[in-house]
């Protein structure tokens, strides 16, 4: 079943890549370039899943995840980052992230992660 996805990444290239990858599987309802935009767009669009970059200008993905989770505890947020340090993953857990994908990702991983968080929510 197609879900509404909000893609958050400061890289236009990466947002493009995710859109292409999700095409025909899920619907990308919005794109944000930083944590502040992500929180605003989440409120506006009420997506089923957020893919969230971590290192971004203005407001990073960990802070944005905490904010989204505090406003909507049922939100599904998947971190999507080039950082694979264990300590950073702990920070993501604390912020309430539901999944953690390391870049570079492959299509099956992303689809699996989305399916898993949707199922966990249902």
């Amino acid at each position: 079943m197609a879900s509404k996805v909000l893609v958050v990444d400061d890289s236009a290239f990466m947002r493009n890549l995710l859109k292409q990858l999700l095409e025909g599987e899920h619907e990308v309802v919005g794109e944000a370039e930083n944590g502040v935009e992500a929180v605003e767009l989440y409120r506006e669009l009420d997506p089923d899943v957020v893919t969230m970059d971590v290192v971004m200008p203005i407001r990073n993905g960990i802070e944005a995840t905490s904010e989204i989770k505090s406003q909507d505890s049922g939100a599904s947020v998947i971190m999507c980052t080039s950082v694979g340090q264990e300590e950073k993953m702990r920070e993501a857990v604390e912020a309430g992230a539901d999944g953690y994908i390391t870049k570079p990702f492959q299509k099956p991983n992303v689809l699996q992660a989305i399916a898993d968080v949707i199922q966990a929510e249902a």
Partner: protein
Amino acid sequence: MQVYTTDTPTSTSGRIKVGIADYAVDSDGGSLTTSGLGSCIGVALYDPDSGVSGLAHAMLPEADPSGDPAKFADTGIQSLLSEMQDAGADPTRVVAKLAGGSTMFDFTSANGGESIGDRNVESARKTLERLDIDIVAMDVGGDHGRSLELDTSTGDLRVRSAKAGDQIL
């Protein structure tokens, strides 16, 4: 929180580069290349039935227990063969081609003994004999450098040399 990581990618171009003190296996009909063989020895192994091939580039003749196996001719050949077996090669069908092992300089440190190039060739031959693998072609020794390319679909080993020209083993 579930973590999703990417698997190590496999070769996409069908051309695998083998470094120094390194070996690699291919079973998709691509090519394996290595360059800069001076006194180092290049060992190409090929199983014509399964198409599983391998190329090793070893620096020294005999293993030092603490060292990386790929660095030495004896342990390098052994490791390469077992990796080929894991990929589906039958060791009774595997044949070998050797290239490299030249003696480019007569340094004083050799102390009049056998050069490292000669010792590398000798060690590779002995190791292959012990593993019961036939050497079907060889271009070893001399005083020039070589670069190699193994076509894993045919088992052809192309030997490039700045001095002696190109040839196919």
